[in-house]
């Protein structure tokens, strides 16, 4: 009897988690935006993104929504896992009405984009704004011609790496050509920019002296770092790691001890606040290219808005989540803006949103500090190079906003 009771309680608890109460739809049509975000798994939890969405949703709906329609971001945990994210997307596509679920904007990891490319681009045709910067999806091999419904919020990894290589050329003082060690994770996104990188260094006259792979689950990278040390590099480029991966900090700490003087340069996901909180002193002096603004740049109108809204909603952003919070706002506002433009042109459908995105030159109310760009390539071509300061607990900008379309010509 007691066991029976316990099982019943357990089952009901499980049911509560698995089948939450159905949401009641409001009278006027609610515009839904599917937003898979990582709340756990191999890359760590990016709770801040969720807060960004939530506050963005409240902000827009308090203003009266998008042309009279309330907006709802359907937050789902993707656990950094392709199967989970695919399941989430499929579920949303099946359950939500076609005229309400107008787009996805969220994590949408490279693997998911790859696996779902036919379904999203040919079958369902729903615009999807992703946080992936995959070369395969958004670079030379992919792009709008091949994946017309995929969008990104920044330059692809090859372009980011290109910016870093040019930065190296610029700061390199020695007579000899810069010696570069490349470290990446043996993952889809980690190996993504390699081919382009190797072409690019030839053009620029940079020598790759070491090339090391580091598994994202590795707990010790002494061998790799020793190999790098043997090659005597001037710079280390690392790519394909997230602050939530234990290996990131292990790598930073190990390099700091074996090669204390060699600067480390990273792409967007290595250039987030989480890297400073996780790495601690070892993250000091990291250089990285980011497609986003930093939380402390309160002069930036976009950051100002996020600050105001966070304050208004009593949201304390813990150190380390700032980049994620801004990421949530970026995606949220971008999606809402696209719906807004589509509604203005009287075509509030998935197709309309796609057209709106393609035509967009919207700069998040001035986030890029007046720099202009075109979104025809389905990616915002803007990025900036930052340097980490552990003492200040922030990333300081080293360059103005760079437009890759111009910089990498």
């Amino acid at each position, binding site marked *: 009897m007691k066991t029976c009771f316990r099982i019943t309680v357990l089952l009901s608890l499980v049911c509560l988690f698995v089948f939450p109460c159905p949401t009641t739809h409001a009278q006027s049509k609610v515009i839904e935006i599917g937003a898979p975000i990582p709340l756990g798994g191999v890359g760590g939890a990016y709770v801040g993104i969720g807060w960004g969405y939530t506050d963005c949703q409240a902000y827009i709906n308090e203003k009266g929504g998008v042309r009279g329609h309330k907006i709802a971001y359907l937050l789902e945990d993707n656990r950094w896992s392709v199967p989970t994210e695919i399941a989430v997307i499929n579920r949303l596509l099946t359950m939500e009405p076609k005229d309400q679920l107008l787009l996805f904007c969220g994590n949408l990891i490279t693997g998911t984009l790859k696996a779902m490319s036919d379904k999203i681009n040919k079958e369902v045709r729903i615009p999807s704004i992703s946080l992936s910067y995959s070369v395969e999806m958004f670079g030379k091999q992919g792009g709008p011609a091949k994946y017309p419904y995929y969008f990104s919020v920044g330059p692809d990894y090859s372009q980011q790496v290109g910016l870093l290589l040019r930065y190296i050329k610029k700061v390199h003082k020695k007579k000899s050509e810069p010696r570069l060690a490349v470290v990446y994770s043996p993952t889809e996104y980690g190996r993504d920019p390699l081919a382009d990188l190797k072409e690019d260094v030839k053009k620029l006259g940079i020598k790759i002296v070491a090339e090391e792979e580091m598994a994202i689950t590795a707990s010790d990278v002494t061998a790799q770092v*020793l190999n790098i040390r043997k090659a005597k590099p001037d710079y280390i480029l690392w790519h394909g790691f997230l602050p939530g991966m234990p290996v990131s900090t292990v790598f930073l700490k190990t390099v700091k001890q074996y090669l204390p003087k060699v600067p480390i340069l990273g792409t967007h996901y290595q250039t987030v606040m989480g890297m400073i909180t996780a790495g601690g002193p070892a993250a000091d002096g990291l250089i990285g290219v980011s497609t986003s603004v930093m939380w402390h740049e309160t002069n930036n109108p976009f950051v100002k808005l996020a600050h105001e809204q966070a304050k208004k909603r009593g949201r304390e952003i813990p150190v380390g989540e700032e980049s994620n919070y801004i990421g949530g706002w970026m995606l949220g506002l971008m999606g809402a803006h696209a719906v807004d433009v589509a509604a203005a042109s009287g075509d509030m459908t998935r197709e309309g949103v796609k057209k709106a995105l393609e035509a967009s030159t919207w700069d998040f109310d001035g986030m890029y500090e007046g720099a202009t760009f075109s979104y025809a390539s389905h990616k915002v071509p803007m990025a900036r190079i930052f340097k980490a300061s552990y003492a200040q607990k922030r990333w300081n900008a080293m360059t103005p906003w760079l437009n890759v379309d111009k910089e990498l010509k």
Partner: protein
Amino acid sequence: MMDFLQFFCSGLLNGLVYALLGLGLVLIFRASEAFNFAVGEFLVVGAFLFYFFYFNWGLPLLIALPLGLGAAGVFGGIVERSVIKPLMGRPHLSMTIITLGLSNILAGGLQATVGSNPYNFSVSLPDLTLDLGPLIFPSTNVWAGILSLAFFTMILLFLYKTRWGLVIQATSESQPKALCFGINAQSVLLLVWAIAAACIGASGIVISNLGALSSQISVVGLRAIPVVLIGGLDSIAGALVGGLIVGIAESLTGAYLEPAGLIGFKEVVPYFVLLIALFIRPYGLLGRVRIERV
């Protein structure tokens, strides 16, 4: 040659950490005949307990370390009382299986309480960097080796030089016999789980200090599986031997095989060594051969 020495010794230092981790598993296996699959979560919990005392409360290391390890021990004891003790007298396999479930529950609990983001974990220890010209061993690695070895030795002294250690050995060998001796086998099991949890927690602290602390370093705990299987599940010396073998094998693989194109082989090589070791000695290099009488 110098290269080889460098990689060999780096592997040795890592191996000592693995040995400590393996020791925790071996102690539990000897006493409860259960393989603790929740070792990864034990590792994270132990490290987090220390984190609270040292980083959150700012206690000095010499106080925070015993407190943290003590708390890890209490945690191990709680697990034993709530999960393992109710299964006493059932087949040993059921204990092993329940640790699988326990591992999932703890992983979820950790995610809910501390999240899955990394915590900066840099214990301020005197700089012990060994810079010998061509050979260099960073301070954190040297400390990892020293701390692991010290803790390992302490446990060994306790086990082999004290009365309670004798009692643990006796109970591990046979609970019914221990009962005949008037030994309260259950409280001994509690003690063993506490010591093992402290052991695993200590290696968690050392491992976190090499990188950052997050609930994800629990995957490192799985490295203990080849360690104890190579050395022999019931052999304490085997944990040391297995740990060193795995550490050195990983390091040498990373140095010589991975650059040759076998990238990621480092994660696999412990299992390769395990396979070879089991071909030679099915009960592990130092494991006791069990003769089953039919």
